[in-house]
């Protein structure tokens, strides 16, 4: 796509994006809800998005699917008051919807498989009902303008005339970073165009490419994005990504996961765990603890060391030969 068309496309999406941003008041409500409160808290939402990230990675869904699913989820949560117990159903239905729309011809797992792997407790019919509700409330037809849309367009702009730059500015890396950011609820408030630009600039700053930086400034001017806004989000992005890239691992709370094994393995595990021996320990070179004092047995520990060196072989030598040694 040539530069002019790209810019037009950018412009068009920019004008559309307002429809796809979750309602701010709704998001604020979620952020202010306390954990274990009556409604959905930010932590709940983040945990759910983590789950969706895991599932979409496992099933090999594209970044597009994941980003779309998160977008749907955020918009729905901002719109409707959802009870925490329904959150997992909402999350999974958003993912399923997104998967169906983004890649209808790709290997699609049926709702059953999603539910089974995701270890959810509801049924497939629950899932499809929820999907209908979500689609209806959000007037969802086929796609949405998400940060990914902008990211792809910006990427093309930044590559500009030289597509060989692909190795330097990797789209996969940017996508991975976007996924990392989306797991944090605060980024749902950002406008997609601004978030994507902030992300791109962060990466370009890292690889220190002057002319790509110029491109981004050009885009910013074209879309009339305010400096202050961009700066604000750029900072947050930087913080989030430094957390993501740090080698510090967080131990997952794996007790949430259900480990189902077959009956035979379960039996096997049970029987092997109870193998307590019933013979008491015999200390080496010492007395049997139940034996009472016996004064005539005067070669106590000396005998043990003697036995291991001499008697081991000595046992086979007849007595008269032994004495000759």
């Amino acid at each position, binding site marked *: 796509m040539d530069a002019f068309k790209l810019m037009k496309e950018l412009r068009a999406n920019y004008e559309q994006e307002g429809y796809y941003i979750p309602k701010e008041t709704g998001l604020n409500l979620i952020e202010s809800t306390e954990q274990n409160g009556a409604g959905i808290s930010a932590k709940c939402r983040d945990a759910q998005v983590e789950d969706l990230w895991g599932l979409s990675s*496992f099933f090999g869904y594209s970044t597009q699917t994941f980003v779309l699913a998160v977008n749907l989820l955020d918009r729905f949560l901002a719109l409707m008051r959802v009870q925490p117990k329904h959150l997992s159903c909402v999350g999974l239905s958003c993912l399923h919807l997104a998967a169906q729309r983004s890649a209808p011809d790709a290997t699609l797992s049926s709702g059953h498989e999603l539910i089974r792997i995701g270890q959810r407790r509801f049924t497939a019919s629950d899932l499809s009902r929820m999907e209908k509700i979500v689609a209806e409330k959000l007037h969802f037809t086929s796609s949405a303008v998400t940060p990914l849309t902008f990211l792809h367009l910006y990427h093309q702009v930044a590559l500009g005339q030289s597509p060989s730059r692909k190795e330097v500015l990797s789209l996969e890396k940017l996508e*991975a970073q976007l996924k990392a950011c989306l797991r944090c609820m605060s980024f749902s408030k950002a406008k997609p165009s601004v978030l994507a630009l902030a992300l791109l600039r962060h990466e370009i700053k890292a690889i220190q490419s002057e002319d790509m930086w110029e491109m981004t400034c050009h885009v910013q001017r074209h879309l009339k994005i305010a400096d202050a806004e961009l700066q604000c989000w750029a900072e947050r992005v930087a913080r989030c990504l430094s957390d993501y890239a740090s080698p510090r691992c967080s131990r997952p709370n794996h007790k949430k996961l259900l480990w189902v094994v077959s009956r035979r393995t379960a039996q096997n595990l049970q029987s092997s765990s109870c193998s307590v021996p019933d*013979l008491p*320990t015999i200390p080496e070179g010492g007395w049997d603890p139940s034996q009472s004092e016996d004064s*005539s047995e005067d070669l106590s520990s000396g005998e043990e060391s003697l036995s291991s060196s001499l*008697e081991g072989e000595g046992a086979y030598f007849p007595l008269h030969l032994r004495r000759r040694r």
Partner: protein
Amino acid sequence: MSAISASEKVDGFTRKSMRKAQKQRKSQGSSQFRTQSALVELSPLPQLKDVPSTEQQELFTQKLQQCCMLFDFMDSVIDLKSKEIKRATLNELVEYVSTNRGVLVETAYPEITSMICTNIFRTLPPSDNPDFDPEEDEPTLEASWPHIQLVYEFLLRFLENPDFQPSIAKRYIDQKFVLQLLELFDSEDPRERDFLKTILHRIYGKFLGLRAFIRKQINNIFLRFIYETDHFNGVAELLEILGSIINGFALPLKAEHKQFLMKVLIPMHTAKGLALFHAQLAYCVVQFLEKDPALTEPVIRGLLKFWPKTCSQKEVMYLGEIEEILDVIEPTQFKKIEEPLFKQISRCVANPHFQVAERALYFWNNEYILSLIEENIDQVLPIMFGSLYRISKEHWNPTIISLVYNVLKTLMEMNSTLFDELTASYKADRQREKKKEQEREELWEKLDELQISHSGLAHSNSHMLHNANANNNNVNNNNNRGGGGPPDAAQNEDMEVDAPAPPVPAEGPPGLY
């Protein structure tokens, strides 16, 4: 052993059904086929408790001698009265030794040991059932158990009596005694082996002078079992005794014990009947590692060397043992063996046998192992990633797929960056492979075309008629080849393509092809 053809071995049904059909009676075995020249009837002696204490010693000796008389239990109707007398006497003797003090005077020892030797030391009969499968079949029980059981009981009480003096007893309980005792461990009767286990355990505890000898003999039995006969019924019991011995080893461990671990215990994992004694064997190995953690690396390398390749049941056992070892492993030791170990685990995880895969995946349910993995995630994740990702798409068993999801999710959460990197590089690898495959296909197609055009030109110099025929031939060849497709060119990637002779126009020099 009867000759079993290879096809019978593969078909697991044949042998068992045949054996079940053959077995009609519950077998009893005994080597005490003693037919007395004169059927001596036992005359009942007075009870010990009824006799004044001065005479008790004498009576005790008489009863012991009386019990040296052996009876034939294969015939269940003869000598019933005498058998009953002996049984009652033995019972009485057991009680007498357990409850009274001052019973074990010096003169009593030879009588006691001689009675015991006479009764229990016997050549074990050959097995009734040569194809005895310890897991499936009922064992052949000792027919004279009613008497022998009491003799064992008596021996045990004798050893555990507070007045027992090893210094006196060692004249009679000597190496010969121990050797004969060890041979009895091959008995098919599990009750007998259970007694023998406890008895040998007590003897080992009390007779320091015999300890090295006992260890050496057990060594020999095991080595014979592993390398020569592959048959010994008492392996589990001996291992239990060894477990309690190993538990009591003093630190630092003697070289002799370390040798035993590496030369006997580890190779014992290769035995065919591992299932019968694996729990005890694993316990011994783990005890060794708790005593001396430096042994971890050679032990695990040894297990990996002997890793079963065709027996999935054994693989599951090995995995259980590895988990037990990992439960007690020190983090420094873990670092030394993580690479070869996890390479093997990643192979197990991808195993089409679902029990093996399940057992391997279940490691991730173990908190301590998770913490070890977490510390070493940079080494572990790249090794595990490939097979986990692959089987998440390809495995046939849905339970396995859920478990793989759990494992991947856990690893994902431990280090997302690394995980993403590995995903990206895995996908890139797959794409490159696909590209290579495509290139190979195109290469073959190109070669085909060149071949056709080449052979087409070869004919073009000949007579026109030949040309017409040749063209037809070529068309046919094309059709044939088109159906077959390019051959599987799995080998040479950097195949040099010899450029065939450039196509020469028909007017060229004649017949040089």
